[in-house]
C-alpha cells in the first residue's frame, strides 16, 4: 500500500506545491512537507500524526500554495471541521486518502477508518464503539464522579490534549483563561478544566484520539468527548467532520438548525 501512496504523491507533486505526509528520519517518524525532488522512499504512514494542523499552519504561512495531504479518515474529518472555521482553505488542498488497517480501526475505536477521498486501499471493517463509553454511561453518578476524580487527579495540566488536537487552533484558550480556571492548581480544578474542553469539543471532535495518545497521565479523555459527540448528534443531528456544508449548530438559531424531537431539555 505504501508504494501506491508514494506513487500517488509523486504524481501529485508535479502540480502541487507540496504534499504533507509523514517522513522517516534516522530515529523516528515526523510530519513533513514533501516537495518536488524529495526522496519519497522516506514517506511513511504510521504512526499517525494530526496532519491537518500542519496543513493549517502552511496555508496560513503561505497564502497561495496548493498542498496535497496523505490523509486518514480522521485527518479528512479534521480538516472538514477546520475548513468550516476558516483554518484551512479546502480549495488549496488535495486529499490523497488511504484506508486505515483493521488493527488501527480497532485500536482507535474508529467507526469510519477511511476518508471520503479514498485513493489507496480498501475500507476495513469499522472498529468497535469504545466500550468504556457504555460502561461509564451506565454507572451511577457517584461512581462516575469517583472515576473521573481519580482520572483528573492525575492531570499534569500539560495542555498536551489541546496542543495535539487539530481542532484546538485558537489563539487564546479558555483553559488558560484566569476567569474560568484558577491558575496555580495542580491537578487543575475539578471538573471545570476538563469540562471546558469537553464542551468545546462537542461540535468539533472528530475522534482522532490524538489527545488520548498525547496524554502523559493516560486519562481516557475521548470517553468524555465521545459522549459529547453522541449528545450533539442526538440533540442537533450534527456529526463533526461528516459534511463540510453543515454549519456548527451551536452558532445557529433553532430555525436554521432545530432541536431534534424529544431531545429538548
Amino acid at each position, binding site marked *: 500500500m505504501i508504494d501506491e501512496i508514494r506513487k500517488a504523491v509523486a504524481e501529485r507533486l508535479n502540480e502541487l506545491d507540496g504534499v504533507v505526509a509523514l517522513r522517516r528520519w534516522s530515529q523516528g517518524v515526523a510530519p513533513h512537507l514533501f516537495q518536488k525532488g524529495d526522496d519519497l522512499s522516506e514517506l511513511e504512514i504510521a504512526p499517525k500524526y494530526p496532519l491537518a494542523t500542519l496543513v493549517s499552519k502552511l496555508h496560513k504561512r503561505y497564502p497561495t500554495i496548493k498542498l496535497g495531504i496523505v490523509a486518514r479518515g480522521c485527518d479528512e474529518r479534521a480538516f472538514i471541521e477546520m475548513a468550516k472555521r476558516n483554518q484551512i482553505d479546502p480549495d488549496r488542498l488535495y486529499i490523497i486518502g488511504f484506508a486505515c488497517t483493521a488493527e488501527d480501526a480497532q485500536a482507535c475505536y474508529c467507526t469510519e477508518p477511511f476518508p471520503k477521498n479514498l485513493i489507496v486501499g480498501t475500507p476495513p471493517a469499522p472498529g468497535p464503539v469504545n466500550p468504556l463509553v457504555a460502561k461509564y454511561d451506565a454507572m451511577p453518578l457517584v461512581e462516575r464522579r469517583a472515576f473521573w476524580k481519580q482520572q483528573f487527579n492525575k492531570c499534569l495540566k500539560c495542555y498536551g490534549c489541546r496542543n495535539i488536537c487539530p481542532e484546538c487552533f485558537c489563539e487564546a484558550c479558555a483553559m488558560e483563561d484566569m476567569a474560568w480556571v484558577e491558575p496555580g492548581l495542580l491537578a487543575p480544578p475539578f471538573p471545570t478544566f476538563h469540562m471546558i474542553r469537553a464542551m468545546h469539543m462537542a461540535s468539533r471532535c472528530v475522534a482522532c484520539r490524538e489527545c488520548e495518545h498525547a496524554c502523559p497521565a493516560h486519562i481516557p479523555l475521548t470517553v468524555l468527548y465521545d459522549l459529547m459527540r453522541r449528545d450533539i448528534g442526538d440533540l442537533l443531528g450534527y456529526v463533526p467532520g461528516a459534511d463540510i456544508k453543515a454549519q456548527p449548530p451551536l*452558532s445557529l438559531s433553532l430555525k436554521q438548525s432545530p432541536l431534534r424531537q424529544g431531545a429538548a431539555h
Partner: protein
Amino acid sequence: MSMVTLTIDGQKVEAQEGQTILEVCRKNSIDIPTLCYHPALEPYGACRMCTVEVIRHGWSNLHTACTHPAWDGLEVKTNSPVVREARKTIVGLLLSRCPKVPVIQELALEYGVKEPPFAADNPDEKCILCGQCVRVCNDMVKAHVLNFSQRGVDRVVGPPFMEKTRQCIGCGACTIVCPTGAIEIVLEKSAVYAEKPLGPTSAIYVPSLQAVPRVPVIDTDSCIRFRQQDRTNGEIADACGACQMLCEVGAIDFTQKDEIIELDVGAVIVATGFAMWDPKKLSQYSYGKSPNIITGDQFERLSNAGGPTSGQILLADGRKPEKVAIIHCIGSRDHNAHEYCSRICCMYALKHAHLVRDKTGAEVFEFYMDMRTFGKGYEEFYERVQEEGVNMIRGRGAEVEVLPDGKLRVKGEDANLGRIVSANVDMVVLCTAIEAQPDADKIGALFGLSRSQDGFFAEAHPKLRPVETNTDGVFLAGCAQGPRDVPDTVAHAGAAASMALALMDKGEVVISPTTAKVTREKCVGCGDCIPVCPYTAIARVDGKAEINAALCKGCGTCVATCPSGAIEALHFTDEQLVAQIEGVLAWV
C-alpha cells in the same frame, strides 16, 4: 362645452349643451314629476310623467323632459294647462293599472284624478313597466337577469321564465330604482356588508365614524362591480359604477389596489388598540340567543344618530323597551375570563343608563360589582345618573335567561340586600371586557415587544417608562398597552408622540455602551460568532472577527459562543461575571 340658453316657465336659463330638459330643470329647482328617471341610468321616457310643453319656432309640442335635449332658444313650459291635462291623463292610465301604489295615488291627487278611469285587470299590480329595473340590471349591474317578456297587454318584467335564477346576485339595485316598490328581493343569505350585526349599510362606506382621513372605502365583497368581476372571472369588469358616475369630483377609482408601502422611519408608535371580548364565551349570559341581548359596543351604535335606528333605542322588533338591564364586568374581573378590570365599562355603562332613561324613559337595572368612577367628573356623573332613577344593584349579574315570550330574565345577587334578585326586562346590555388584539403576537414578534400576562404589550417599566418598550424607538400608545379610557389614551398617545419626536429631533441616536468588542490578538477567525448575531453586526475582516458597534445590541451571545474568549461583552465581561459570581456566593 358650449352653453345654451333656453326659457323655462318664462325664465331665461343657462344650460350645458347635451343636457336634457329634465336635468336643466332639476338643476334650477324646477319640479317635474318623474317615475322612471334615475340619474345614473340612460333616460327611457317610459312613464311619461315628465311631459312638458316645448315651444320651438312658435310650434308647441308635448315631449318628455327626460329625453328632450336642451337646445338653444327653446321655450319650455312645465306647468301649463296643456301639460297638466296631459299628465292628468297619464296618471289616470297609471292609476288604472296600479290603483294601490302610493306614489301614483299621490300623483293622482296632485293632478285631480279622483278615480281610475278604467277598472284594473289586477288591482294588486304594482309594476308600471317603466323598465328602470331592466336597465339597472343590464346596463349597470350587468347581471342580465331582468327583462321584458311577452307583448302588448301581456307584457311583464322578470327573470327568464319568471323563475328564480342563479344569475341574480341579489344586489337589490332593482328594488332601489323601482319607483313603485314592485320588486321585493328575498335574500337567501346576507349579501350586504353588515355593520356590527345591527343593520346593513352600503357597499361603500366610511370605515369608522372617527376615520381619519374621512374617506369612504369600497367593500369589494359587497360591491356589485367587484362581485361581478369575481363571478365572471373578470369578463364583466364594468358593472354598476353608480358611485363613479354620481361622484361629482371623480374620486372613485376602481383600479386602486391594496398597496404595501415601505417607509424608512425613525420611530414607531404601536397603537393597535384593543379587541372586544366575545361574550359567547360565557354561555350564562345567553349572548346570541336573543337579538335584544347586545354588547355595550352595539348599544353605542344603536344610540348613535348615524346608526341603524337613527339613534332611537329600540328592540329588534321596533318597539321601545320598557325595562333594560345593564350588566357590568362581563369578561372582566372574572377568573373564567380576564382577571383585569377593563377600566372603561363602568363609565360607559352609566352613560348608557343615562341614554336609556333620556331617550326611552325605560326602567334601568344596573348590575355592578363596585363602581369605579376614578376620573375627573366621573363620580359626579355617577350621582347624576343615580338621581335619574336608575336602579343600582350591587352584585355581578350572574345569568341572563331568554323566556319563552322573548322577554329576558336577569338574575344576580344583590350584595346589599344579601339575596338573589331577578328582573324581567326587554333588553340586556352586556358591558364586555376589552382585550388585546388577537394578532398581538405577530405585532409583538415584528417589533420585538413582549407582552404582559394580560396579553397587552409590555411597557419598558410599569412605573417609570410606561410609554417606551424594550425595543429602542418603539413606543406604545393607548389600549395596545392596557385598558384605558379616552382621556388617558390621549395623554398616553401624546407622550408617545413626544417621545418619538424627541428621539428624531435629536438627529442622532444614543446607543447603549453594552456592546461586544473583539480582541484581535485572541481571535483566530473561526467565524463561529458570525451566524450567532441577529443584527449581522459581526463580519470577518482580514481573517478576524470585527463587530460593528452601531449595529451591536449587546446581547452577548457571540461572547458565550467564542471558544477563545476573544469577544468581550462590554459591561458584562467574563471578569465582571466571575466577580459577581464570587461576590454573590461570598455574601451568603
